[in-house]
């Protein structure tokens, strides 16, 4: 019984760690994409200009 409980606890802690890792990864990905593809600051736009065009982000 104890083994079973601890194995369930372990699975659920693994799962919550997995969900947390995925959410953090997606948040980072979103923030980086916003900076390269969306941010309106002129120097950022000019630096990432060619990438925005090739990767089909709305640019100008």
């Amino acid at each position: 019984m104890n083994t079973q409980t601890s194995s369930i606890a372990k699975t659920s802690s693994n799962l919550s760690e997995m969900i947390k890792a995925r959410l953090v990864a997606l948040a980072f990905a979103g923030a980086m994409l916003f900076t390269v593809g969306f941010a309106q600051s002129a120097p950022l736009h000019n630096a990432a200009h060619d990438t925005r065009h090739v990767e089909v982000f709305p640019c100008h």
Partner: protein
Amino acid sequence: MMYRLFATAMAAGVLVAVLVSMVEVYTTTPLILEAEGYEVSTVIIGHVHDHSAWSPENGWERFGYTVVANVVTTISFALFLVVGLSFGPKQADRRTGFLMAIAGFAAFTLAPTMGLPPELPGMPTADLHARQMWWLATVLCTLGGLYCLFLTDIEPVKILGILIVLAPHIWGAPHPLTQASEVPATLAAHFAASSIVISAILWGLLGYFAPLFYNYFKGKEA
């Protein structure tokens, strides 16, 4: 797990971004530079650069910044792909990698391109904010819809997934008031085709390398 996701995305992202940047030098970059020649005479269309702001000098400096921007973009794409891999078996295989790459290509390139075709500098476009919102909505709907379609087993949810994928296209993308442009149509067509092919190469390479690094970093986790 966090370490594994980020290490994989960074390794695959940097490698693929450098490879893709080399391809761009011979394919899309000359087309962008050529289009910028027409752009000077098309101020009326509304595409005006802020010339007082800093911008990299053409040549190595501009290429360097493009590589950096490509690295950041590709790491972001790789993070999405690796999150996809994390739904699969602990030991990722190439097949899953390629399937996730196809999903990424569909969500980040194919779906938004349907409404907002690749644009060269100097081409007429609709309001930037409206296009960005539509792009974002389309990418999120496609990712969410594909998740419902392929990563759940409930029939009604799958049907909902199809509807979510279609929704932004039924709504419709913002279009420019005029289609007239100084940029030659053949140049624009060439660029549109090239940029879609380059995205396909990018996702294909990510689909190949991400599972390799994902398995490599499995043993390195604390």
